[in-house]
């Protein structure tokens, strides 16, 4: 309709439109409107990209630049050394030690956590009385900040007066050197992580369990499958994508663990013999205790590569699993790769807001909300 009107105006006054004879002349207001429509979408997303470029992308790139130099915390940029920092860090015993510690703590915190969280989620995935209370009860540790968690558990695991050693001793068991020995210190630090995150992850897994249509369970039961069989043949395969998601988040976070080992023994940087020095802690020590920015940047860059590598491996594995999972639980898994499928609107977030008394009991209703947690991030 608009273009029609313009046509007539143009025809009436051909001279006026000489700069752009092919296009109908727009009024100022209309031009503004078009500009508004064209530019606004970019304007709205610009803050994210500008900020990310400044505080995310640029620092990461610059880290590589710094790693090619002798670079001192205070004296600043020194000589160009090429890849010598990389050579030295890769031959550094403490770098590998820190990687070993990081991985060890990561495994000790991820595997038991996933198992317990799944079990708790299965317990919660029933028609419980006081459902909200139980859900809140498992989330309690999440509101204790990592710093407070570290302070509390550093005390519980204290070698001389710690509660845990006191109790062990009262049962006639030798005191364990929680801070001075490698494996015990890893267990202590992993316990902090597990304590804070298990309930949280149980809730994510619970959401996944609740999106499994209940009639699948019903027909399985009619076919004679017992509770355990149903759990292993239906529940586990169905929540696998969510489990992978939990593992991926745990990986990205776990490989960068800092607060817990830093505060477990704040007088040292990861123990007297670096027995629980994680890689980020080593990076910290290199940069701010030893003032060697060049090497610290090298460590950061190497860790970055390792995390990306882990991410890729995770991604490939989850691709495979998702594909094989498709046959078992129709409708889920498969091509719906959480991370990539940004454009798939199939997804997420039914009515958000305080969850209405929906889930738990009358579950079939949850099918439209279905795919929630899988599509998370």
């Amino acid at each position, binding site marked *: 309709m608009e273009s029609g009107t313009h046509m007539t105006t143009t025809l009436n006054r051909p001279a006026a439109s000489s700069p752009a004879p092919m296009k109908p002349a727009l009024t100022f207001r209309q031009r503004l409107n078009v500009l508004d429509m064209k530019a606004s979408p970019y304007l709205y*997303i610009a803050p994210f990209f500008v900020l990310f470029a400044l505080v995310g992308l640029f620092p990461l790139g610059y880290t590589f630049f710094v790693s090619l130099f002798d670079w001192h915390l205070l004296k600043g940029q020194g000589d160009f050394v090429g890849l010598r920092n990389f050579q030295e860090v890769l031959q550094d015993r403490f770098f590998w030690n820190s990687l070993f510690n990081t991985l060890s703590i990561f495994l000790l915190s991820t595997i038991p956590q996933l198992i317990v969280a799944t079990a708790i989620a299965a317990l919660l995935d029933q*028609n419980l009385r006081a459902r909200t209370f139980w859900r809140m009860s498992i989330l309690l540790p999440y509101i204790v900040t990592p710093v407070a968690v570290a*302070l509390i558990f550093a005390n519980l695991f204290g070698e001389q007066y710690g509660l845990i050693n006191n109790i062990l001793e009262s049962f006639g068991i030798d005191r364990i050197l929680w801070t001075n020995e490698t494996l015990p210190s890893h267990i202590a630090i992993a316990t902090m992580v597990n304590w804070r995150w298990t309930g949280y992850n149980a809730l994510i897994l619970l959401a996944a369990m609740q999106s499994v249509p209940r009639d699948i369970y019903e027909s399985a039961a009619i076919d004679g499958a017992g509770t355990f069989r149903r759990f292993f043949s239906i529940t586990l395969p169905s929540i696998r994508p969510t489990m992978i998601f939990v593992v991926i988040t745990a990986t990205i976070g776990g490989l*960068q663990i800092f607060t817990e080992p830093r505060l477990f023994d704040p007088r040292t940087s990861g123990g007297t013999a670096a027995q629980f020095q994680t890689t980020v802690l080593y990076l910290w020590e290199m940069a701010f205790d030893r003032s060697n920015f060049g090497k610290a940047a090298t460590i950061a860059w190497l860790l970055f590569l390792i995390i990306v590598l882990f991410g890729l491996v995770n991604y490939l594995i989850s691709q495979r699993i998702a594909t094989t999972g498709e046959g078992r639980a129709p409708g889920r898994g498969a091509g719906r790769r959480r991370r990539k499928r940004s454009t798939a609107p199939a997804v997420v977030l039914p009515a958000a807001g305080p969850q209405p008394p929906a889930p738990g009991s*009358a579950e079939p209703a949850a099918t439209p909300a279905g795919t929630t947690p899988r599509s998370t991030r």
Partner: protein
Amino acid sequence: MTAIGTRPRPTPTRDARGRALRRSLLGNGRRPGFLTYGLLMAFFLASAYPLWWSVIIGSRSNEALGQTWPPLFPGGNFWANVGEVFDTIPFWLALGNSVLISGIITVSVVIFSTLAGYSFAKLRFRGRNGLMVAVIATMAIPTQLGIIPLFMMMRTLGWTGEIGAVIIPTLVTAFGVFFMRQYLVDVIPDELIESARMDGASMISTFWHVALPAARPAMAILGLFTFMTAWTDFLWPLLVLGPGNPTLQTALSQLQSARYVDYSIVLAGAVLATLPLLVLFVLAGRQLISGIMQGAVKG
């Protein structure tokens, strides 16, 4: 585990048994047995005890630590210990900084993420899908590893020791954008936006009058999690603020670094620092739960 808890009780006739089975499978009416509650209770006690234990020790003197079996209930020393905490660290300054930092970050993240999420979800523009993939890809990048140049940047700008140095890097997050996009894509009908545009509303006023009201529940959840993440952040504030102008977390860590550590004071501090989030938990626990279950995710 649950087998025993959920198995239908023996019933007289086959018919009734079948009905009970069916009912249990549909989840109507059937309640799990005591074993389920017992296990959940055990897990709850394991979750709560470390916190309770810090309340006990934090309200007594160091002697309580030496006992094999700690006392079951708090003592009367809490306020004295808290007084010590106040003497050791600038608690109120730290609390003020934490509130200010987390508050500003939360407001900013929610506003910018909603704007960007709306744009990705509902507006048509060239490169939309590619840019959205870019946003998601950035979530997998461990930006924490860029701290060295970031620190150099802040030092050059003279911002070290200023809370702005903590606020600015997290003014908008990839997760926030993605989260809002996922929510808004289903929640706002396209016709609603079109009709607002037909009525001559500008883009921003369409956003204001159509998208914003619809986005509110997700904004609340995003705000909650952003606040939590900002509040618990440790590494970057520790680095860039230093001991002079701490956040609650970095101040708390100073308690542990003192030369002679008095654990009852350390734990009193830990309890004190947990109180604000405990209040938040009581007030907004349900929203936290539904947020997690809908896929809000670790920062």
